[in-house]
């Protein structure tokens, strides 16, 4: 049976790739955690130490607390935005949904810097509060700051998934409840939200994981008592080969996998969307005058909140000196002039790396999705699990793992270690963003009826032709979504790149911003570069979206 052989071949290629670029490097790093540091023998004593150490226990609970609260705050931001725009006739719904996605393409550490300026203990808001009311609200103090930054940065994950879920609910489900006397919050709590639960859970799990694993934000806010920074501090300290850093990495990975698994269990068998029969498609309702005003106020407030890093970044990039004042002292173009000369290389690198990584992710995701959903390859689910597990691997761990694994491997022709070749950055980005594309592609393939493929095969098309001509075009929507998410988030990724950039001429924008932000002469140039990054990535995503859409349309004209 040649068909079976082909599917096994594809599956083993995929598995091989994951093994080489995910499992082995991560294994190399976390292996240290299981080593007795004095004898080198395998042991679990380091884990005993971990749970015996109150600092680590505290860090563990802090990380849990931050992740949990981030999910809560992110939900509070995402729920109204998703609900109002999907259920009511609301001017600017599309604008709101688009603006809602923008925080994702903000390099996370830039967001933290910008938020400090607005919400810090002597940031604009607190200076004003102090002036007017003589109070100071500790938005950014300790864990609060991490929670605020994480939730603002990652809430779009909930927004995207929840909006999709809300739009998929059959409208009669809600009408039936209204008909039986339910309305407002109760209707939302008892009917709408439970029905949108799988979408919400998918988004919430992502937020939880990202907040749990995120390193850049706590570091930038000088919060040490969390797991990711503890791991990083211990791994990257001078001369210390303390195994605890690696132990924490293992715990991060394991706990993240656990969280993924729980969210999967929780949403299993609860996929109520798109039943098919009955009245689907939503009839958006009108709101009464005061309701509308209230909703607009809430939404404008939320948008201001989630876009505050961007607003602050704009001010920073045009401001001269911004020190202990509500707004910068004066405005200038000088920072843009300063970065202008250096940005071209960063931008080309970013577009190239993120573009390649996202293309790779999409291709890989289609292959995995197909193997998992359409073949009978033994152990195929594991491809999905392992690729998704990449979500649970902190960027630093992957970065160090790559250095360890590929530094001794010289690439032929160019004759330099694979670890210092720019391609490794692409691979790292691709692995880190694979889960996003995979989710989108799996969902898309789920919705392609098997009978459409059978019809093609029935008419004499081979497996490959069927996949190429029928399956992939039908999955186009999911592929576009996967590509754009992977691309946009890969373009602003820093943690893995920071470890792997070996030459400035190879560096992407995020690295450039990081470097520019280190000047005592101020953060203006860094902010200018950051803003350029946001614009370039937004524009790049739009173009990618546009190009693929056009391609799809053209294919539709050709085949139709």
């Amino acid at each position, binding site marked *: 049976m040649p068909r079976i052989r082909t599917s096994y071949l594809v599956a083993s290629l995929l598995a091989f790739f994951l093994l080489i670029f995910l499992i082995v490097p991560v294994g190399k790093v976390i292996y240290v955690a299981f080593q007795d540091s004095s004898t080198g023998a395998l042991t679990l004593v380091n884990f005993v130490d971990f749970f015996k150490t109150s600092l680590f226990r505290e860090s563990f609970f802090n990380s849990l607390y931050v992740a949990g609260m981030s999910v809560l705050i992110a939900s509070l931001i995402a729920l109204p935005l998703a609900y109002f725009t999907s259920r009511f006739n609301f001017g600017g719904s599309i604008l709101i949904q688009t603006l809602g996605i923008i925080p994702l393409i903000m390099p996370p550490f830039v967001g933290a810097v910008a938020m400090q300026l607005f919400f810090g203990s002597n940031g604009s808001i607190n200076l004003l509060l102090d002036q007017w009311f003589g109070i100071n609200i500790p938005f950014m103090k300790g864990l609060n700051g991490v929670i605020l930054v994480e939730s603002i940065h990652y809430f779009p994950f909930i927004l995207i998934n929840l909006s999709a879920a809300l739009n998929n609910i059959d409208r009669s489900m809600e009408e039936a409840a209204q008909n039986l006397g339910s309305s407002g919050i109760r209707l939302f709590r008892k009917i709408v939200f439970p029905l949108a639960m799988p979408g919400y859970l998918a988004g919430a799990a992502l937020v939880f994981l990202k907040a749990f694993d995120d390193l850049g934000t706590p570091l930038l806010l000088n919060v*040490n008592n969390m797991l990711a920074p503890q791991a990083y501090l211990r791994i990257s300290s001078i001369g*210390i080969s303390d195994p605890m850093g690696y132990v924490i990495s293992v715990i991060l990975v394991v706990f993240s996998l656990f969280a993924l698994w729980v969210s999967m269990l929780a949403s299993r068998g609860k996929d109520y969307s798109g039943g098919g029969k009955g009245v689907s498609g939503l009839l958006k309702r009108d709101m009464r005058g005061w309701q509308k005003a209230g909703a607009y106020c809430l939404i404008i407030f939320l948008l201001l909140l989630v876009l505050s890093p961007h607003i602050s970044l704009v001010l920073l990039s045009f401001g001269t000196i*911004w*020190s202990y004042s509500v707004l910068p002292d004066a405005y200038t173009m000088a920072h843009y002039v300063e970065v202008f000369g250096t940005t071209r290389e960063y931008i080309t690198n970013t577009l190239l790396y993120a573009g390649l990584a996202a293309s790779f992710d999409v291709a890989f995701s289609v292959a995995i999705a197909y193997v998992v959903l359409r073949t009978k390859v033994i152990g195929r689910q594991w491809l999905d699990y392992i690729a998704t597990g990449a979500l649970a691997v902190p960027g630093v761990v992957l970065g160090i793992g790559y250095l360890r694994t590929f530094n001794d491997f010289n690439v032929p022709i160019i004759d330099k270690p694979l670890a210092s070749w*720019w391609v490794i950055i692409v691979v790292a980005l691709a692995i880190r963003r694979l889960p996003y594309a995979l989710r989108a592609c799996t969902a898309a393939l789920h919705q392609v009826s098997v009978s459409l493929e059978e019809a093609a095969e029935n008419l004499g098309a081979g497996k490959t032709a069927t996949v190429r001509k029928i399956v992939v075009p039908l999955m186009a929507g999911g592929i576009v979504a996967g590509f754009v998410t992977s691309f946009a988030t890969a373009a602003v990724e820093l943690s893995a790149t920071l470890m792997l950039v070996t030459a400035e001429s190879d560096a992407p924008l995020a690295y450039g911003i990081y470097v520019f932000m*280190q000047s005592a*002469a101020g953060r203006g140039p860094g902010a200018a570069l950051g803003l350029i990054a946001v614009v370039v990535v937004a524009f790049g995503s739009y173009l990618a979206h546009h190009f693929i859409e056009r391609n799809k349309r*053209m294919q539709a004209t050709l085949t139709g």
Partner: protein
Amino acid sequence: MLLRKNYRKMTGRFVLSVGILTCLALPAWALEKDLTVVTSYPKDLTTAFKQAFEKQNPGVKVEMLKKKTTAGVKYIQETASNNSSDLFWASAPDAFEVLKGDGLLAKYTVKAVGIPDLIGSYPINDPDGYYKGFAGSGYGMMWNTRYLKAKKIPAPKEWNDLAKAVYHGHTGMSAPSRSGTTHLTVETILQGEGWENGWKLLKEIGGNFHTVTERSFGVPDGVNSGQFGVGIVIDFFGLSSMASGFPVDFVYPTVTTLVPANIAIVKNSPHPEAAAAFIEFLLSEAGQEMLLDPKIRRLPVRPETYAKAPKDFPNPFIDKTIGAKVKFDVVKSKDRYNLVNSMFDVMITYRLDDLREATKAVQDAEKAMAGKSNAEAEKLVAEARALIAVLPIDENKSLDNEFSAIFKKKRKKATDKVTGRQAEVEQQWDTMVKSNYAEAIKLAKKAKSML
């Protein structure tokens, strides 16, 4: 048909543009002749030297690879088996010590003449000949003038000032484990004030911290943006911030050390000649003069360069008060490097909230006591202060090589054996420190309630 043709054309164009994009971004091929410098220095400094050096040496391209000092060390360690870096260029001598200890640096003898042996009381070059000082920097305090004015706080002059109640919650510093230069400051205080008193002072200062930053740059950044008022920083951060127009000021306290900033050739450097040329350029008169640039602001190691400096530029070769008070013991510092870092983190960085609370309680009690006399309360406060100051180990233990080995634990051979585990020791310390701070809070509160 027409459609299909258009489609092909478009696909072709896309492939072409991807191709062009790929070529544009294939700097890897051009890299072979590049001198790779792993550095922790900011862009303002590296760009200036890169441009000047490339101008002087046509044909050599300098690649500045920016990493935080700690990450730079890690990077050189991890890539040692297949090294592609030529130079390591950073401030903290300790970072160089670590690399030297791992055998990752190459010896080099400087050809340039006219450079003295000492800057302040610190030897400019590594006695073993592995790394060279090219500039000096001193530690001091910078503050945001707007911040201090708004909060009606006086500007500090000495380290001791920062222990005063008026600075509570207004100061910031980087952790020694995160920043090599900060480590030097801590070690300087420990050597200058003595082990017990030094730690006592550090904890009193630490009890006032608004934050302990993860990077040394976080301190000037926090002061510049007004997140906190006063920061303990290396001079060039303070001075270049001033030069950039931030409303900040800087002062050297009496007890400070002048720290050389260093450069070393990495072992198995792919371009040793170019690397040597770069070092010579740094130490040449032209290179030294560049240090006077307000955005760079380091103290040159060539005494004659100071003739060209602006008027109020400090000159350690004339003004012997800068960094003269402490005779810095490099060996001592090196032996307990990780141990000191670990102690600082356990007692201050990771227990900042507890320490801050304890310090606040003591300060409140002292404020309430002012002008009154209550022997019992005074005794309680003194007890509280002593509890905060208690150290898990004394100086002798800190210099006990067997003990401090727990914190290095570099097993060179499989037969090497180290007893005890860092996590275990740190947990013991943490338990002690935490309960002491808690007890101190209780005592101080009790004292206050008696008044």
